[in-house]
């Protein structure tokens, strides 16, 4: 018999029951909640006269709608305000731990879970948010769910699931300086496509993944959903355990010793078999930039905008044409000649402290190019913001001409006041370049924090790996 994959181990250790056809009840350890996808779930619970099963499993935070400017005045948009207040009310009513808007620990749900130690190795973690895959970086089974399933977890602490297939993505070799986790994951999506992981849970492995920090691993797992996967995950190693140690909600003392000894087994066995596998050579990677309206429409900084006429598949060809028309780009245009109007450094993909450090080191002593209308830095959480300020990073950003904001999702999806106008182009460290994602008619190019920073100071996309260190 072959060994177990990490996914098998996580699945088996949370299996409550299973029917003959494979339909299973899976127990959920951690339920993260934000304001957008939860109100209808709480309402459904109430209408059915049900109580939450285990409120102690829940951590809630408003992040999508919150303003990133001074918050003491509250939320100006009345519709957003009602949604955030609804979350506050639901949490108060049921005694759920919430980091409300003015709490210094508030931030993007996928940033604060790991930061607080509320995300731990070996857990099942769910949230009504597709980027819940982020938490898989800890050797956890983590995935996004819809609102009906949020209600299901509230009421039963379980989900009805069927096991997915397994996909191993091995990334080996050393990254060149200036090339980061974001470039790895964009290159993976470029290779396997946005549906390449559909029906699968991805395990990211290989020497390049092992040498990434936890923050880098989170960036990669965050975008597993953009490859269509149910979940992304990375095996536990010393890096994981060191990151978790001492976090507020991490186990302590004897519990810690017991936990760590169990976590050491959270990796795929040597003889485990996967349904599929893909490998990528990290040493040949250059920084990546998306040119279209899907994360798979990506190329290296040394590349050009591709020509739809060279695409043999007619559906894809038409998709490329629509994307280029939307992005207002011509085939053959060098990526380095594209000039953004905005730069956004933020989101659950790239707004942790290492991301801000990477961007800050590029802009040190330089200023935002006059062609850039706005350059925004939105830290992933209040604690990331505090840390950055303690290191003086905010001064670097502010002196260079960036705006330094309060934490939240911000221009990643433009539900609050931070958004592009029609036709504007943005170099963004977020995860989705869909039409209208950052504001109706807005055009998004996904890049790493260092690449966003170099675009801000040069006024066009440039190869940050060629910069003198």
């Amino acid at each position, binding site marked *: 018999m072959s060994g177990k994959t990490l996914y098998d181990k996580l699945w088996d250790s949370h299996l409550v029951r299973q029917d003959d056809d494979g339909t299973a009840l899976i127990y959920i350890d951690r339920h993260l909640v934000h304001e957008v996808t939860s109100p209808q779930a709480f309402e459904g619970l109430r209408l059915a006269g049900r109580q939450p099963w285990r409120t102690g499993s829940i951590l809630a935070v408003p992040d999508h709608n919150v303003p990133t400017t001074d918050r003491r005045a509250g939320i100006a948009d009345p519709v957003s305000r009602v949604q955030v207040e609804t979350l506050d009310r639901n949490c108060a009513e049921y005694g759920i731990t919430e980091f409300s808007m003015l709490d210094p620990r508030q931030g993007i749900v996928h940033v604060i879970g790991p930061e607080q130690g509320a995300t731990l190795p070996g857990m099942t973690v769910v949230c009504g948010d597709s980027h819940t895959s982020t938490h898989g970086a800890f050797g956890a089974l983590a995935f996004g769910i819809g*609102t009906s399933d949020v209600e299901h977890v509230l009421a*039963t602490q379980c989900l009805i699931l069927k096991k997915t297939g397994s996909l191993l993505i091995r990334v080996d070799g050393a990254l060149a300086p200036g090339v980061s986790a974001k470039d790895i994951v964009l290159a993976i999506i470029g290779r396997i496509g946005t549906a390449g992981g559909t029906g699968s849970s991805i395990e990211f492995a290989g020497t390049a993944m092992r040498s990434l920090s936890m923050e880098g691993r989170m960036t990669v797992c965050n975008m597993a959903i953009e490859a269509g996967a149910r979940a992304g995950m990375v095996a536990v190693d010393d890096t994981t355990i060191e990151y978790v140690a001492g976090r507020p909600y991490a186990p302590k003392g004897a519990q810690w010793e017991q936990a760590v000894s169990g976590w050491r087994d959270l990796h795929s066995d040597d003889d485990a078999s996967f349904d599929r596998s893909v490998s990528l050579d990290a040493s040949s990677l250059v920084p990546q930039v998306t040119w279209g309206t899907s994360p798979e429409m990506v190329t290296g900084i040394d590349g050009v905008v591709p020509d739809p006429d060279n695409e043999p598949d007619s559906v894809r060809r038409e998709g490329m044409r629509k994307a280029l028309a939307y992005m207002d780009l011509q085939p053959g245009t060098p990526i380095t000649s594209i000039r953004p109007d905005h730069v956004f450094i933020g989101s659950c993909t790239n707004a942790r402290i290492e991301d801000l450090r990477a961007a800050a080191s590029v802009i040190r002593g330089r200023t935002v190019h006059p062609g850039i209308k706005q350059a925004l830095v939105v830290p992933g959480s209040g604690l990331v913001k505090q840390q950055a300020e303690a290191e003086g990073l905010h001064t670097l950003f502010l002196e260079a001409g960036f705006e330094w904001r309060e934490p939240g999702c911000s221009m990643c999806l*433009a539900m609050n006041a931070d958004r592009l106008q029609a036709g504007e182009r943005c170099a963004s460290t977020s995860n989705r370049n869909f039409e209208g994602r950052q504001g109706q008619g807005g055009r998004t190019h996904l890049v790493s924090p260092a690449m966003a920073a170099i675009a801000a100071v040069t006024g066009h996309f440039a190869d940050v790996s060629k910069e003198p260190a």
Partner: protein
Amino acid sequence: MDKFDTFTGIVAPLDRPNVDTDAIIPKQFLKSIQRSGFGPNLFDEWRYLDHGEPGKDNSARPLNPDFVLNQARYRDASILLGRENFGCGSSREHAVWALLDDGFRVVIAPSFADIFFNNCFKNGVLPVVLPAATVEALFAATTATPGYALRVDLQAQRIEAPGLDAIGFEIDPFRKDCLLRGLDDIGLTLQHADAIRAFEDRHRQAAPWLFNKP
């Protein structure tokens, strides 16, 4: 949830791959705390020429004549025909609520994104995966024939498509049963409450730190 057994409806073709849930229902409408009322804003950015906001009177907004669902022949459509990776992106169930609210009970595509696919079943919407060639044939038939309609028989897992051979489709037996009976799956799960409690006790003993309250 409404039961689903057989359903007959006019088909609307949405000829683009990777239709994402941001396109199905743009983010500004996600601020609602209701489950209904999203229909007029389905595909808002494609459907109208101006910018939509919650509370705006949609009947007074300029329609985009180039958007397929605005064509008179598709106005009463209740079956949506799409391309690969339909429903990718955000987990927002509002996308399914908007489709349902606008009268769609069936979505047919060569492939779906996982969370969207799951959300459909929770709301009595049937997502049908068909081979790309079959989808292609349906696109051709739909665009060639005004008023082209399909009859979907869930029990028999069969679609009757005028001019084509009957089309069989696969569906997970558990999900099929829930749709046919209009079942609330929370109620079903709670039938196993004892098993959940027993699991929880074992789990707590094995890994007590998982139960530390944040």
